[in-house]
C-alpha cells in the first residue's frame, strides 16, 4: 500500500465509523428513549400502552395503599388535572411520601401504571429533574397548565 492510499483509506474508515455511530444511535434512540409524561397527558391518552415511559407528579394525599403482601403499594400520582393510579412492588425511596413529588418509570397497563422504579426526592435539596417545574408551581399554589 502506498502511504497516500493508506491515508485515504484511514480517513474513509474514520468517516464510516462516525456515520455508523450516528446511524446506530439514531436507531437506538428512536424506540429506546423513555419519554416523560404528566398524569394529565396520560388521561388524555397521549402515552402508548406497554411502552417504557416516565410519569411524574405529586403523590395524592391519602392515596397510598399497602397491598396484602406487604411489599406492593398502590397510590395515585396527580398534577392537579389528571390522576393516574400506580402500582409498585419494592422498597420505596426514603423520601417518598404523600404530598410530595415522585417520578415513576414503567409501563401503562389497562389504565394502571406498573412502575419498575420510583425516584423521589433524594434529600431536601434534590428534586428529580422532571419535577423541577411541578414542585415550584405546586409550592406557589398554582394549578398546572398543560
Amino acid at each position, binding site marked *: 500500500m502506498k502511504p497516500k492510499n493508506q491515508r485515504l483509506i484511514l480517513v474513509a474508515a474514520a468517516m464510516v465509523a462516525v456515520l455508523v455511530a450516528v446511524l446506530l444511535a439514531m436507531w437506538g434512540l428512536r424506540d429506546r428513549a423513555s419519554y416523560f409524561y404528566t398524569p394529565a397527558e396520560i388521561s388524555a391518552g397521549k402515552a402508548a400502552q406497554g411502552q417504557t415511559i416516565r410519569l411524574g407528579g405529586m403523590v395524592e394525599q391519602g392515596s397510598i395503599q399497602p397491598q396484602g403482601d406487604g411489599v406492593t403499594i398502590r397510590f395515585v400520582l396527580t398534577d392537579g388535572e389528571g390522576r393516574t393510579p400506580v402500582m409498585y412492588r419494592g422498597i420505596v425511596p426514603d423520601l417518598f411520601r404523600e404530598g410530595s413529588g415522585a417520578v415513576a*418509570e414503567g409501563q401503562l397497563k389497562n389504565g394502571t401504571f406498573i412502575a419498575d422504579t420510583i425516584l423521589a426526592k433524594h434529600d431536601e435539596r434534590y428534586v428529580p429533574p422532571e419535577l423541577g417545574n411541578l414542585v415550584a408551581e405546586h409550592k406557589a399554589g398554582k394549578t398546572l397548565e398543560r
Partner: protein
Amino acid sequence: MIAETGLAALWLAAGLAALQFLLMVIALRTTLDVGRTIRAVAAVQGALALTAFVMLLLVFARSDMSVALVFENSHTAKPFIYKIAGAWGNHEGSMLLWVTVLSGAGACLGLLSRQTHERTLVAALGAQAALALGFYAFLLIASNPFARLLPAPPNGKGLNPLLQDPGLAFHPPTLYFGYVGLSVAFSLAVGALLTGEVDAKLARAMRPWVLGAWTLLTLGITAGSYWAYYELGWGGYWFWDPVENASLMPWLAATALLHSINVLAARGALKAWTMMLAVVAFSMSMVGTFLVRSGILTSVHAFAIDPQRGTFLLALLAIYVGAAFILFAVRGATLKEGAPFELVSRETGLVVNNLLLSVILGIVFLGTLYPLFVEAVSGEKLSVGAPYFNAVAGPLALVLAILVGIGPLLSWRRERRPVFKQLTVPALLGVTVFVISFIVAPAMGVLPRVGLPVAMFLAGASILPLVGRNPLRAPIATWGMVVAHLGIAVSLVGMAMNAAFTSERLAVVRPNETLTVGPWTVLLKEVTPTAGQNFTAIEAELRATRGDGIKVLKPQTRYFTDPPMETNEAAIDTFWNGQLYTVIGKPDPSGGWQLRLWWKPFVTLIWAGGVLIALGGAIAMTGRVRRQRRRKPEWRKERYA
C-alpha cells in the same frame, strides 16, 4: 486570614499562567530560549495553586463558618475525614481541585519531561497555561471558593450523607487526576501541532501521561461503580447515569489514544489520528466537567435561569475545543504519514480497535446529550437509559472484546506467521462455555449468553503473548498489556454472571421468620435502634446460612439531621463465589419488616477486573518510564557540558 491567603495565591497563579502563555508566544515567534524560564514559571504556578487548595483544606478542617462554602457544606459535628472530604464534595472546591491538578500536571511536565523536543515542550507548557488561565478565571469570577459570609453563622448546613463515605471521599480526586492528566496529552498534541514535530519521540513523551491518567480513570470508575453498588442499595453496579457517562467518555477516548500512541511510538504511523485522539480525550474530560458542574443535568431550564457558571464553562469548552480543532484542521493535513503497513498487521488491529472504541464513544456521547438536545429544542422531556446503551453499545463492546484477544498476537507491518492457530484453545473454551450455557441456563438473556463465552475466549487468548517465550524476559509493557486484557475478561465474566444468575427476593418478614434467596436461608433475628456519630438508625440482625455455618449481617436505615435525610445502608457479605446483599426496608403494620435480598454469584469479579485493568496500566507505565529514565535528559546535557 487563611481564606484571603488562598484567594491571593489564586490571583498570583492566574497572573503567572498569563505570563507562561506569553512566554510561549514569544518563544514561537522569536529565537529566544525561554526553556528554563517557562519551566520555572510553570513550577511556581503549580505551587501557588496547591497553596490555594491547602488553604481551602485548612478552612474546612477548622470548620471556619465565616467562609460561605464551609457553611454550605460542612458541620462541626461531622467526623474529621468528612470535613476534609467536604472541601471537594461541592462545586467550588472541586473546581479548585481540578485547576490544582491541572497546573500541578503542567509543573510536572516542565520538571520531569526529558525526552521531548524543546520547542514542542515550551509550546505545550504554553497550551497548559492557557487551559489553566481559563479555569482560574472561572474560579475567580464565577465560583470563588473563599467568599466570606459575615457575620459567621454558628454552624453549617452539613454534607449530603450519601457523600459521607470513605469510598466517595477518594473517588472524585482519583477521577480528577485521570481527567486532568489527559490535559498533558492535549497540550503536548497542541504543542506538537504548533511546531510540526509530530513523531515517535513525541509519542514516547506523551505515553506515560496517557497511561497514568488512564490508570487513574479506570480506578476512579471502578471505585465509583462499587460505591453506587453498596451505597445506593439498589444492587446495580452501573446505571448509565449522565454523571457516570461523563467519566466513561474520557475513558473510552483515552483507551483509544493509549493504543494508537503505541503505533506512533513504534512505527511513526497514525500521526494525525493520534493527535486527534489526544485532543478528543481531554475534550471529553471537559465535556464531562461541563455536564457535572454546569447544572445542565438538573434541567436545561435551570441552566438558562442561572446562566453564569454554565455559560462560562460552555464558553471555555467552546474556546479550547474549537481552537484545538482549528489548529488540527490547519496543521493536521500537512503531517507526513508514517510507515506503511499491510492489511493483516498489528497496525490494522489497533486501527480497528480505535474505530470500534470511537463508535462506542459516539454512541455514549449521543445518548447522553440527546435528552438535553431534545429538551432545549422542543421542551419535551425524556431520559435515555440502560435499554439504549446496552442494546446499542453492548454488542459492539463484545466484538471489541473478541478482537482484544486477537490483536496482540499480530506483528507489526505484516503478519506472515500462522498466528490464528494459537487461538484454537481459547476458541474451544468459548464454544464449550456457550454450549454448556444452554444446558445449565436455558433462559439466559442474549448479552450474557454471548458475553460469557467471549469472556472465556478472551481470558485464554489474553495470556498468549506470554506463552511460548520466557515470561520473565518479556518486556514489562507486555506484562501490563496481558494483565489489563485479562482484567477485561474477568470483568466481563462478572457482568455476565451477575446478569444471568442473580437471584432476588423481596418480602415482609417478622422477627424469627426466614426468607430464602439462591442457596441461602436468611433468618430475621431482630430489629433494634442504634446510633452513630451523626445519625440514628434502625438495624436488623440477619442470620444467613447455606449449610456451612451462620453469617451475621446487619443492614441499617440511617436517619441524618444535618441535612435531614434517610439512607439505606446495605449489609454485604463476600464469599469466593459471590456476594449476599441485604437491605432492610420499611416496617409493616403487622409487625414485620420489608427485607430485600440478593444473591449475586461472582459479582465481585466486575471490580476485580477493573482493578486488574488499572494494574495493567500501572505496570505498563512503570516499564515505559524506567526505559526512558535510562536515557539522559536532553535539556540538562548542555548545562553540564
